[in-house]
């Protein structure tokens, strides 16, 4: 299935990507598995593994790593927020 993955702030800079469109293998069923899948794609994804307190959102809602992923979902990874 196709999904969109977004990256923000320091993680975005470290990866060099703002957004990617991805064809996801069937076994990648949740946010944590997506992170592991990306890290396994090569050293250019290492920042996803080394990020302290990595946070995620599914369809623009804060989500845990056990949150399921469905086709056409918009997944985002980012550091803890620092607004206000």
């Amino acid at each position, binding site marked *: 299935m196709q999904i969109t993955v977004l990256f923000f702030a*320091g993680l975005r800079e470290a990866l060099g990507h703002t957004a990617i469109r991805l064809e996801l293998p069937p076994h990648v069923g949740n946010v944590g598995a997506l992170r592991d899948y990306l890290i396994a794609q090569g050293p250019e994804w290492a920042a996803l593994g080394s990020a302290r307190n990595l946070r995620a*959102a599914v369809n*623009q809602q*804060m989500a845990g790593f056990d949150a399921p992923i469905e086709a056409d979902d918009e997944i*985002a990874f*980012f550091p803890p927020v620092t607004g*206000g």
Partner: protein
Amino acid sequence: METFSIDVRAADFDPNAEIEALTAHNLQIGAVASFVGLVRADTQKVGADETDSIRADSVRGMSLEHYPGMTEKALTAIVDEARQRWELLGVRVIHRIGPLRPGERIVLVAVASSHRGDAFAACEFIMDYLKTRAPFWKKEATAQGHRWVDARETDQSAAQRWNESSKNSTSQ
């Protein structure tokens, strides 16, 4: 008329105008609590002395990144939760994005209510949740270069206490 609105934008805001729009034509409003966050030049002094000299790596500016779409959803959800917890007659939240200089306004939270207890609690609640749930990220510019601001543990605990005390803090 009750107004509950949020705005995410680069432009500065006028706290007075926002508060007056919030309170106009509603004579039930007796209390307006508001918060304005500003860009600080620095968080630490050179030494223990009380001079106003600031560190060489003091902040020269800041840039705010956000997650368009999610930001608005998150802020709206926070305001909705505040409305469920307290009796509110109006809320206005403005958060700026993009480059900002020291001393500039970053965020406004203004809450109108009949009584001050609700206004104060909701205003602080919205700020605490905004700090931990709204997708904004600050990058500081210093003489040594740029650095992403680290999240603070105190912000997490400030947000956490609203789950513990729940409605107890609504003394009036």
